[in-house]
């Protein structure tokens, strides 16, 4: 299994290292969050290049959306090892709940979003709680969450009065605001992702993060040193699910149209798994790296829809066989090793 | 029959057994004495193939078996009777026994031999192994090992969980087997029984052989007496 060590973010080039005058503590805080800021700035520049193309904007909106999903999944699976095969369902819960609440009950979009995110958090927390109180291992947690995912999909299809079933739901609320335009939704979702990354980073540096690492390493030892494993697992489940649900809800309003296939297992969970595995399970920026890589890959494969599935399958096999830590961390480690070797050689000369 | 040379083995990179060397000649009964945690089970597991040794060699019946897999070693005639039995709980006593003879079938005569040796098992031959008492399970484990007509029998603390009477019975059975020509290596914490049966013995502590000698010599040894025989 991929060890969920919280790998440090890639080393910063000398120019961005903070100056010591501000004080060591602040320096380390800046160091910790700087990569997120770097990612944010770079990502914010993308629309300057692609802003005119509707299809490109849709693509990168999809990319940021999935980055958000993967951060949430990372919090649940990367931090506490719970195999939640229901990311799509949680996102769909958020999406449909928010759409139905705002369109049918006239709830303001912001409120609907919060309620939808909260609903996903409750459901996710419940799933976590069940898994934890019945001591379900990886397989059973995976099966139960998969069953939930499929059942939810069928629920969406079956409850046609509420969800319009297979034909999909038009989401009116919010479409007349900035969310309905071409570029702003990207920034909305990007802001969400950056917020999630900040939360994840803060978590990693806090006592909670320490508890996560402890229980991931050796559950019994963690329990003996006073870490309430059950509580932390449920916490991770609640938080991650909230992230996923909120992202799914926001997407519904920006897209203006959702259907059960938007949030299906094959559409969401498969991609999320592969993205996280590639980027590094448990790492901070892994979700971003993975999402960027596979959004690009999807675009490249878009013309050949047929063997997209074959490629995904092959990628999964190769990834989990050859790069249990994820491709990105392995490459990073390799670069570190080369660096050490060349600097050592230089010193000898 | 069995020659162990400089064998080291352990788990997760840490050796528990360090450079152990000893031998067992054909038709001998050799006792391996040591307290809990001395490394007896680790040593046995390394010999019979359940644990890959980190160093050293094991030669059995003229052939090197170091690092070979357990089922291959079992088929060569080295039968291991583990302390934690490893029986098949949902299969009947007779089925467990038959599996012991797996590579060589048919097994009816051997089974009768085992039943003669352990009449209790004959009574319960159709019972599921998981429902047997501790002592009966122990007997079944020994019986299963005998089904393959082994050349060498490795027993890991066969008296665990047995009442003194059953333990004596078990050793009586082992004595009978020895008289039939079976070579036996037995690891024991209950030293008096083992020394009674054995020709020679080794003392294993902290993963190393500390003493060796004939059973009589070991029995007279003051350190052995103090540590294992409860004689101050």
């Amino acid at each position: 299994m991929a060890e969920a060590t919280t790998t440090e973010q890639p080393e910063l080039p000398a120019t961005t290292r903070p100056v010591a005058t501000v004080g060591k503590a602040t320096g380390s805080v800046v160091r910790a969050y700087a990569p997120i800021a770097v990612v944010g700035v770079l990502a914010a520049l993308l629309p300057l290049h692609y802003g005119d193309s509707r299809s490109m904007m849709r693509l990168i909106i999809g990319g940021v959306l999935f980055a958000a999903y993967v951060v949430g999944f990372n919090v649940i699976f990367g931090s506490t090892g719970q195999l939640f095969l229901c990311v799509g369902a949680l996102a769909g819960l958020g999406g449909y709940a928010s759409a139905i609440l705002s369109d049918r009950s006239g709830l303001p979009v912001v409120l609907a979003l919060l309620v939808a995110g909260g609903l996903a958090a409750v459901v996710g927390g419940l799933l976590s709680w069940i898994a934890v109180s019945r001591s379900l291992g990886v397989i059973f947690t995976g099966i139960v969450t998969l069953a939930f995912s499929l059942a939810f999909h069928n629920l969406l299809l079956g409850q046609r009065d509420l969800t319009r079933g297979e034909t999909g739901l038009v989401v009116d609320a919010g479409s007349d605001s900035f969310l309905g335009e071409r570029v702003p939704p990207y920034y909305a979702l990007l802001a969400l992702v950056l917020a999630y990354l900040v939360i994840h980073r803060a978590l990693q540096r806090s006592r909670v993060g320490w508890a996560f690492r402890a229980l991931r390493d050796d559950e019994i030892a963690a329990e003996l040193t006073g870490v309430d494993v059950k509580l932390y697992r449920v916490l991770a489940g609640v938080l991650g699910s909230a992230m996923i649900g909120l992202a799914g809800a926001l997407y519904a309003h920006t897209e203006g149209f959702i259907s059960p296939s938007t949030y299906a297992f094959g559409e969401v969970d498969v991609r999320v798994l592969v993205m996280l595995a590639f980027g590094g399970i448990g790492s901070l920026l892994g979700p971003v790296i993975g999402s960027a890589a596979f959004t690009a890959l999807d675009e490249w494969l878009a013309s050949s829809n047929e063997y997209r599935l074959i490629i995904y399958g092959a990628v999964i096999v190769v990834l989990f066989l050859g790069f249990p830590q994820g491709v990105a961390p392995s490459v990073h480690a390799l670069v570190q090793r080369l660096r050490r070797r060349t600097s050592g050689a230089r010193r000898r000369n | 029959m069995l020659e162990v040379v400089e064998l080291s083995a352990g788990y997760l990179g840490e050796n528990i057994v360090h450079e152990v060397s000893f031998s067992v000649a054909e038709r001998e009964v050799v006792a391996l004495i040591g307290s809990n945690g001395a490394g007896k089970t680790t040593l046995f597991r390394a010999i019979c193939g359940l644990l890959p040794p980190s160093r050293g060699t094991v030669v059995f019946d003229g052939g090197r078996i170091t690092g070979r897999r357990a089922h291959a070693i079992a088929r060569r005639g080295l039968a291991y009777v583990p302390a934690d039995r490893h029986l098949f709980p949902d299969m009947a006593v007779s089925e467990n026994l038959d599996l012991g003879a797996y590579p060589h079938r048919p097994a009816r005569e051997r089974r009768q031999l085992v039943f003669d040796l352990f009449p209790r098992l004959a009574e319960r031959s159709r019972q599921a192994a998981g429902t047997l008492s501790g002592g009966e399970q122990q007997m079944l484990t020994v019986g299963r090992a005998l089904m393959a007509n082994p050349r060498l029998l490795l027993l890991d603390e066969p008296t665990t969980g047995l009442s003194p009477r059953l333990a004596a019975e078990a050793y009586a059975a082992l004595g009978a087997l020895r008289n039939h020509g079976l070579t036996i290596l037995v690891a024991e914490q209950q030293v008096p029984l083992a020394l009674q049966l054995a020709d020679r013995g080794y003392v294993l502590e902290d993963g190393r052989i500390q003493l060796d000698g004939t059973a009589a010599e070991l029995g007279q040894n003051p350190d052995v007496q103090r540590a294992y025989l409860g004689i101050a």
Partner: protein
Amino acid sequence: MKAVVLDGLVLGLQFGLLGVGLTLVYGLGGVLNLAHGQLAVLGAMVVALRMDAGSPAVLAVLTGLAAAGAVGLLLDRTLLQAVYRRRGESRVLLGLLLMLGVAFMIEGFLVWRYPIESLRLRIGGDPVDILGVGMRTGSLLASAIAVGTGAALVVFFRLTPLGKAVRSVIQNEEGAQLCGVNPAMVRTLVLALSGVLAALVAITRSMTSPVPVDAGIDLTILALIVAVVGGLGSVSGAFLAGVLLGIVNTVSAHYIGTYVTTIVLLGAAAVTIVLRPSGLLGMGRE
């Protein structure tokens, strides 16, 4: 009502057979074969292609079964070796994910090359009257094959030395090794067998309704539900669960609806895991 139940029984026998393959592989090595459905479809597609090419039905069926078995064998000898090298949850997770990848590769390949292919075996003859219900010959033959295979499996596992050797590895792998049983060989054999069983289910299914090329995922989910409810690792449990769930399936689909039916089946699996993880006849171990 009788007709519905009988239909459910016919379906249930196939469900059972489907679950058996999956549960065996899990019981042996802790690998959850998420490509089970795809192996079934692979076998069915080979049969369809051979028949398209003019091969007689029986020969085509044998070819399909052999193909599925061969792929199973190949998977065990190659990819799964990496999985078996690990222990505990690490093994379970890797096995699950690798087989998911394999499932995508197989399905992707089949859908890509033969997007409109499907298997339909028409069995000639008039409907036969069973308990007052007219059963189509296709259903009867499918049921007969399922029952026959089930009986053969029972005989194999309970009475033959090799079958007992397989059970011994499931019940205690180290003990089996000490008896001279080679667990790796047993695992390869069983994975090949499960491939054959999966294909057999698809083929018998095609006797009552066509099996399309993208049926893999549904079959895998079904196999999973049956295996979980029956108790992972228990062959008789899978059969029992299969029959029960088959009847539940048809009754529910007939009187309520398809979406609810799927939810009911999924719920059965979830409830089993939460309330009684060892399933109906499982061995009460993890």
